[in-house]
C-alpha cells in the first residue's frame, strides 16, 4: 500500500515539475505537432486517406517515444544536477519506486502527444480518424505506452550508473523512429535491422495500433508488446540494485 502511495505521489510531483516549466511545457505542446506536420506533409502527396491515417498513427507513437524515453533519461540527469539523486538513493525506499513515477509522468505526456497528433491531423489536414476495432485500439494504445514507459525505465537505470548515459536517450530518439517503423514500413530496411526492431516494443506497439485502426488482427502484436514490457520491467528491477551498488562503488551518483 505504501509503495502504491509513493508511486502515486511521485507521479503527482513529477507532473507538477513538468507542467510548471514554461519552456518544457511549450516544447511539450509544440514538439508532437512538428512531428505530425512533417509526417502529414510527406504522406499527403499520395492523397490516400488510409496512408495519411497510417502516418498519423506513426507520428503519434513518435511523440510518445520521444516524450517518454528521451525525457526520462534527461529527467534522471536533472536529478543528478539538482543534487537530489544522492538524496533519493540515500533514502530507504527501493529506488525503482522513485524511477517508475518518472516514467509514468513522461508516459502521461505521451498520451497528450498522441491525442494532439490525431487532433492536429483532423483539424489541419482533414485526416479522418476512423478506427476499425475501437476496443482493440483502446487496448493497443495503453500497451504501447506502458511498454515504452518501461523501456524508458530500463534506460533510466543506466543513467544512474553512467553520468553521460543521458545522451543515450537522445541518441536513440531518431534511429528508433526508423527501425521501429513509425513512418516507413520495416520491409524497406535491410534484413539485419529486423532482429533489432523485434526486441524493441515500439515496433509491436505501432503495428498493433495500426492493425486496430486500419483493420487487421492486432492481438499478437499487443501480446508481444506487453511481453517485452514485462521483460524490460523485470530486467530493470533486477539491474537496479546491481547498478546502484556499482554507482556507489564508482562514485557516479553526484556530478563530480
Amino acid at each position, binding site marked *: 500500500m505504501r509503495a502504491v502511495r509513493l508511486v502515486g505521489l511521485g507521479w503527482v510531483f513529477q507532473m507538477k515539475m513538468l507542467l510548471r516549466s514554461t519552456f518544457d511545457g511549450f516544447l511539450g505542446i509544440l514538439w508532437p505537432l512538428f512531428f505530425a506536420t512533417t509526417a502529414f506533409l510527406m504522406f499527403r502527396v499520395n492523397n490516400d486517406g488510409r496512408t495519411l491515417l497510417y502516418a498519423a498513427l506513426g507520428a503519434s507513437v513518435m511523440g510518445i517515444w520521444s516524450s517518454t524515453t528521451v525525457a526520462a533519461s534527461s529527467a534522471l540527469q536533472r536529478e543528478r544536477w*539538482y543534487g537530489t539523486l544522492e538524496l533519493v538513493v540515500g533514502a530507504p525506499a527501493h529506488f525503482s519506486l522513485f524511477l517508475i513515477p518518472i516514467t509514468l509522468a513522461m508516459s502521461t505526456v505521451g498520451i497528450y502527444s498522441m491525442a494532439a497528433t490525431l487532433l492536429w491531423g483532423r483539424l489541419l489536414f482533414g485526416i479522418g480518424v476512423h478506427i476499425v476495432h475501437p476496443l482493440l485500439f483502446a487496448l493497443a494504445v495503453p500497451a504501447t505506452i506502458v511498454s515504452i514507459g518501461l523501456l524508458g525505465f530500463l534506460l533510466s537505470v543506466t543513467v544512474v550508473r553512467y553520468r553521460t548515459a543521458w545522451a543515450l536517450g537522445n541518441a536513440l530518439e531518431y534511429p528508433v523512429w526508423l527501425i521501429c517503423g513509425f513512418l516507413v514500413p520495416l520491409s524497406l530496411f535491410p534484413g539485419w535491422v529486423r532482429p533489432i526492431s523485434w526486441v524493441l516494443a515500439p515496433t509491436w506497439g505501432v503495428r498493433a495500433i495500426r492493425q486496430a485502426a486500419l483493420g487487421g488482427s492486432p492481438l499478437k502484436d499487443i501480446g508481444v508488446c506487453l511481453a517485452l514490457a514485462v521483460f524490460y520491467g523485470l530486467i530493470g528491477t533486477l539491474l537496479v540494485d546491481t547498478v546502484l551498488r556499482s554507482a*556507489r562503488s564508482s562514485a557516479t551518483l553526484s556530478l563530480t
Partner: protein
Amino acid sequence: MAAIEAEKLRRTYNQTTGFARRRTKTIEAVRGIDFAVSEGELFGLLGPNGAGKTTTIKMLVTLLIPTSGTARVLGFDVVKGAREVRKRIGYVFGGDRGAYDRLSGLDNLRYFSELYGVPPAVQKRRIPELLELVGLAGREKERVEGYSRGMKQRLHIARGLLHDPPVVVLDEPTIGLDPVGARELRHTIAELARSGKTVLLTTHYMYEADALCNRVAVIAHGEIVAEGTPSDLKSVVADRTVVEIEAFGLPHGALERVRSSPGVTSVSVEERDQAQLLLVQAPKGLELTQQLLSCLGDVRVGRVSAREPTLEDAYVTLVTGA
C-alpha cells in the same frame, strides 16, 4: 555502543587522463581512518578542502562504498546493512542544491517523507513542527526556486529530520550563509544535540566547531591528524602566542623573511580586502613584534596585536604540520 564507528576506513578514486593513451591514476581520498562518535555526542570533522571530509561522510550515509575498512551506524554496517542505516540517519549538505526547485517547500518535504516511509498521520504533525523549527512556517507553499540560500539550507535541515533520525550528519551546513542565517542554523544544530540526537558536523569554520562540538577530529590528506575536545586541540598551541599584523601590500620575500625569523613557529596570511593579515605563532613570552616589523621593511602596517591562540590557530598548526 558508539553511534558511529569507523575502522581503518579507506576510499580511493580512479581518475583517467589522456585520450589516445589513457592513464588511470588512483587517488587516496581517505587513508584508513579510525574514529567513534558516542550516542548523543556532537562530533566535528574539520579539515581543508580535499582533506576527505565529504568522502568520509558519503561512506557513512551509504552513498559510497569504502574501498576497505568498515563503518557502522548504530551497529549496522554501512555496506551490508545500508537500508537499516538509511532509516536511522539524516543527511544534510551545504549549498543550494538538493531540493526540487519547481516544487514548493511543502511538496519537497511531503515527497521526501514518502521516500523515508513516514506515515501520512505522522507527516501531518511532523512537517509543521519542522517548518517551525527551521523558521520556514508561512513560506512553505512558495516554490523553492524563489527561496534565498539560507531558506534552502533550512529546508535541507527540515528534510534531513523528517524521519526523526537518531543520527544526523551535517556536511558544511552553514557554507555560504550570511552571518545571521549561520548563527540561527548553529542554534538549530545545538538544539538537535540537546534533544539527544547524535550529530556529526563537518565545517571549515573553527569558531563554529569550538562553539558547538563536544569533540573534534582534524583530517588532512585523508588522515586524522588530531582528535579530542576543542580544549585538547587548543593545548597543541597553548604554549604559544599569536601576533597579528595588518599589512597593506606585502612585498615579495617579506613572508619568507618572517617565516625564517628566529622564534617564529608558523606563519599564515589571510587576505582582507586591500590588506593582508599576518598570523605569526611564536613561543609564549617571546617579544617578537619589533623583529617582525623589521622583516616587513617599508610596508605600511595597520593594527598590530598579540592574543591567546584559538582553535583555528591549533587547526592551522595541525594541518600545515607547523
